[in-house]
């Protein structure tokens, strides 16, 4: 904590800065009133909708039988990337390669743009110490807490946007590919995320960024930990080298740590796990050639579904007792959550993270095709191809939002 003297000095500097800014400088005031009170049932406040990572909002609806453009908002900077936007109240937030952009939900009008090297979807968390929520986002050098109100822009510089910067690793790497880190998840006022380029999971206070606990997943020399899933006070983290660990969300104590054995019938020596989805039945964890359901009590395998595909990415969506997962070669698979048996498959090539709303599965990827598939039958409902590629979509009140190479696109039911 800063000393009282530093605090007072900071207040003074801040007050003078703001006062000076309002009087003589070109100051852009962003709405600093985005808070939990404006949140609604159709919000999509983090990458996979909820801390469990289900990718399914039971209250949301999206376009069902055909789509048309409700609005499209192009952005100055490229929105190139795979990270999905989020929806909080009347504001949509999206992370591009160089910026965080906030859009009006109904019109797409840009509320503010703030520069920053953020490489994941943001996640909204209430922050009791602030007038507005915190957006937790993973960047190239760690996890950041940002003001959901955006702070202010004075002469092209952001002030009051960044609240904290959590432990991370300095990185000199530069990549021309899509910015991408594991998106953090939030539960109550705590942010759970993977420190970039490490296999360490951290729990942070959403207001101060204080580290509540920090733990290593699997072998300390390994990397490749995936986005956490949080359910019933337990944080589950899987890793590419085949580890799954359950931590107490409050204390970080390890409930169990497992490294399931793929068995002798397969050439795999370990499961190449993707991010988990936590459900009542257990932990749904896809891997390259299938999906396992793990017992939430000890990590043992309850069932295994093999699709023999080549999925190098993507997590499962779970809605109304059905698991939806892509195999990276030819199909989207619908699997019964309780028994692990196939319900249907539908033609879909990329490996991605499906989302579900009101009986429809929506799939987007860096691919010139956005697809809606009936969750009951696997029948393709519609396809939209008017962009070079898409991110994962999210779904709100009858509208689907997706980032394209140009900016943010809102699609609604075609008349």
């Amino acid at each position, binding site marked *: 904590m*800063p000393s009282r003297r530093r605090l007072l000095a*900071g207040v003074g*500097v801040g007050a003078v800065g703001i006062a000076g800014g309002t009087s003589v400088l070109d100051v852009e005031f962003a709405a600093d009133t985005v808070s939990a009170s404006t949140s609604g049932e159709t919000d999509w406040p983090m990458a996979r909708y909820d801390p469990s990572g289900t990718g399914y909002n039971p209250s949301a609806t999206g376009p069902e039988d055909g789509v048309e453009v409700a609005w499209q908002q192009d952005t100055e900077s490229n929105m190139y990337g795979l990270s999905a936007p989020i929806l909080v109240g009347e504001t949509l937030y999206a992370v591009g390669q160089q910026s965080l952009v906030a859009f009006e939900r109904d019109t797409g009008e840009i509320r503010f743009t703030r520069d920053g090297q953020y490489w994941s979807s943001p996640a909204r968390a209430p922050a*009791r110490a*602030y*007038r507005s929520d915190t957006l937790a986002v993973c960047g190239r050098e760690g996890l950041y807490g940002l003001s959901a109100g955006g702070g202010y822009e004075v002469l092209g510089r952001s*002030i009051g946007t960044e*609240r904290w910067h959590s432990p991370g690793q300095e990185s000199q790497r530069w990549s021309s590919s899509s910015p991408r880190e594991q998106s953090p998840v939030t539960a109550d006022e705590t942010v759970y995320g993977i420190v970039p380029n490490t296999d360490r999971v951290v729990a942070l206070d959403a207001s101060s*960024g204080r580290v509540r606990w920090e733990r290593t997943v699997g072998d300390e*020399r390994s990397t490749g930990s995936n986005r956490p899933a949080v359910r019933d006070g337990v944080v589950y983290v899987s890793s590419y080298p085949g580890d799954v660990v359950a931590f107490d969300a409050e204390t970080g104590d390890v409930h169990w740590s497992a490294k399931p054995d793929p068995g002798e019938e397969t050439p795999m020596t370990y499961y190449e796990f993707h991010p988990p989805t936590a459900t009542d039945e257990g932990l749904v964890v896809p891997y390259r050639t299938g999906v396992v359901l793990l017992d939430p009590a000890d990590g043992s395998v309850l069932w295994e579904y093999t699709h023999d595909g080549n999925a190098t990415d993507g997590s499962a969506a779970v809605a109304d007792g059905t698991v939806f997962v892509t195999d990276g070669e030819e199909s989207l698979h619908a699997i019964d959550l309780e028994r692990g048996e196939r319900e249907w498959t539908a033609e879909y090539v990329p490996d991605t993270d499906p989302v579900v709303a009101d009986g429809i599965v929506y799939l987007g990827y860096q691919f010139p095709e956005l697809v809606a598939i009936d969750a009951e039958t696997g029948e393709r409902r519609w396809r939209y191809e008017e962009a070079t590629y898409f991110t994962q979509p999210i779904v709100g009140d009858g509208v689907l939002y997706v980032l394209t190479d140009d900016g943010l696109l809102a699609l609604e039911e075609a008349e």
Partner: protein
Amino acid sequence: MTDGRDHQSNPPEFRRGQRNSLSVALSRLRYDPVLFVPFLLVGLLLAVVDWLHRRDPIPTLERTGLGTDGVNIQIEYVGYPTGIGQTLRPLESLIGLEPHYLG
């Protein structure tokens, strides 16, 4: 077609100039050996940095092999890529705070 004679005549002048500079430098160093010290220090520093790079080319945790679980030693070097050890809060984080948290 050929101007070989020009090329043959230039190198001796160049070598002569180089020999002169080197001999002047060497004689100055012989005269005042303290001039070696900054070069020695820089050389030692670079040697240490090289040794650190070779010892740990990628800054990750390593086991040291005491017992089956090993003992992990994490070393952070100044001037060497390291992690951020604690949460940082910039001054601008004061903006938007609820008033009673300023007290």
